[in-house]
């Protein structure tokens, strides 16, 4: 059974259909890319999965459970974490705190535990901090742990977003253009990071514009145009698909 299935997913904003009758399966352990021209509806798909938008019709099924109507915090608690196209870190919290916020749903301390600093809260906080440091090491930000998120260079902010998302122990990680705006070296490092995340057993859905990168690391590619899937398959199949070439380059190219 697929980890995530979208069934006839449609989202209309008034007369505009941002996503139209989209069906796709994401198998566990794979890196699946969503590509398509600007405005194709890729980010809308993420916003539908994570509960920012409610689908106009269709279903989102994750581990056999329908996610329709869940709120974002419930979606993330069920095991789906995401990064944002335009970085949305907690700018004036430390790098370490940012990652610890990501662990929120995995922690249990109640309000009085925190207020009274009970042994339970202390134990849990210490464990959370340890895990956060481990994740910072994984993404190469250990040195930055006590800096504010906003003070990090852009490429590091991208990595911090990934570490924060991983802190929620996702089974499925949605990365929305994680390499956007980074230089070629950073881009390469980020893609290596994405691959090592997959090795940790996390399934990844990736939105990315850089075709070369997408083709290199994806197991499977879905191409959207005007909210509709126009092709899917392995990178090689997609690359040769005439409809994809047309969507990207226009007719008669």
């Amino acid at each position, binding site marked *: 059974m697929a980890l995530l299935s979208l069934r006839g997913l449609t989202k209309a904003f008034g007369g505009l259909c941002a996503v139209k009758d989209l069906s796709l399966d994401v198998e566990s352990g794979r890196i699946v890319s969503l590509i398509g021209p600007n405005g194709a509806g890729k*980010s809308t798909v993420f*916003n539908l999965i*994570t*509960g*920012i*938008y*409610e689908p106009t019709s269709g279903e989102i099924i994750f581990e056999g459970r329908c996610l329709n*109507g869940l*709120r*974002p*915090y419930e979606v*993330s*608690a069920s095991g789906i*974490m*995401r990064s*944002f*196209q*335009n*970085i*949305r*870190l*907690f*700018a*004036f*919290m*430390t790098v*370490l*705190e940012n990652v*610890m*916020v*990501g662990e*929120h*749903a*995995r*922690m249990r*301390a109640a*309000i009085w*535990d*925190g*207020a*009274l*600093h009970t042994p339970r*809260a202390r134990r*849990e*906080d210490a464990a*959370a*901090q340890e895990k956060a*440091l481990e994740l910072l090491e994984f993404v190469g930000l250990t040195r930055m*742990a*006590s800096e*504010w*998120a*906003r003070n990090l260079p*852009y490429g590091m*902010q991208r990595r911090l977003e990934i570490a*924060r998302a991983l*802190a*929620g122990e996702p089974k499925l990680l949605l990365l*929305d253009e994680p390499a956007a705006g980074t230089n070629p070296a950073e881009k390469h490092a980020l893609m290596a990071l994405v691959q090592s995340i997959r090795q940790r057993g996390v399934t990844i859905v990736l939105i990315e514009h850089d075709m070369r990168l997408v083709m290199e690391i994806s197991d499977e590619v879905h191409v959207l145009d005007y909210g509709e899937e126009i092709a899917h398959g392995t990178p090689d199949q997609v690359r040769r698909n005439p409809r994809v070439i047309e969507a990207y380059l226009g007719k008669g190219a």
Partner: protein
Amino acid sequence: MSTLRGSTAFGRLAVVLLIVALFALPYLDKNSSHISAYADTGYVVLLAFGLNIIVGYTGLLALGFAAFFAIGAYTYGFLASPQFGLHLNFWPMILVSAAVAALFGLILGAPTLRLRGDYLAIVTLGFGEIVPQVFQNLDKWTGGPDGIAGIDQPHLFGYAFGFNPVPYYYLYIVIILASAWLLNNLRNSRLGRAWMAIREDELAAAHMGINTTSAKLAAFSMGAAFAGVAGVLFAAKLSTVSPSGFDFNTSVMILAAIVLGGMGNLPGVVLGAVIIGLLNFLILPQASNWIHGLGDQLHWGWLQGVDLNAYRFMIYGLILVLVMLFRPEGLIPSATRRAELRANHDEASGITGGDVPATAEHLG
């Protein structure tokens, strides 16, 4: 490594010395009206603690915070006075009033916390106006504009507090210290991080698994609970409550205290509250007396008419304008807020969001 910044040995020593000095104060200053002013400053500190959770940590602009103060004070008034013939023991009533105020925090918060920014400010402002009006007009139960008199004053091991300000002063110090400990714990807890994450980016916080609605409700009710405790102490020390003590001016005074001291940072909040409290209860009344004395000496009759208390809000306003001009982050800001205000001067932060809508359809 710690998520808590700047808790140095020097800082701890300073805190210990300060506490010793606070306990010694009634031996150094035997003027009972001074001690009374110091004690009253205590409730400003407690209110500032409460408002700091809502405004400073969670970033929700709540006006009308005095409503929770009123609810705490009247709760104790109802439960320990001839009004209903109830005379419940003072000590557990501290917690009862805190709980009642917290409950009203939930009742107000549940329908309104979907609102953001200015809209939330307006609704809470309205609540702040409504509550004293209700106490004023339900005169059958609340004593109307005269309020409730003859409220029981605390006893401890056979010692009656009465109208002597000294025991209240010590009680405030003990409760403030305990509150500061609680607040510092909260700030560095799972919930405290959730509050700050909401302040920084509510939508991203929701995606990190934070139930933003319940975290904001927790902030509202915790803040209200502190105001409830302040209300009990206030009512007990004065032995009376009336609606006029809880108007918009009180709310503004508390907001001014945390802005002056440094929002989101406990030492700053305490300093701001102490300055505003002393100004209000000690300095302005005294300065008026000096001016009157000066008028007597110089035979300048018009000086007799000067009452600085009447200019209180002009003076708060002046202080706020000066703070905003010269030290917008407050006197002892949290490191965060200083950087934030500096950053806004430099350039717009590189961290902004545009790929998801500012108001989510389904964020709840």
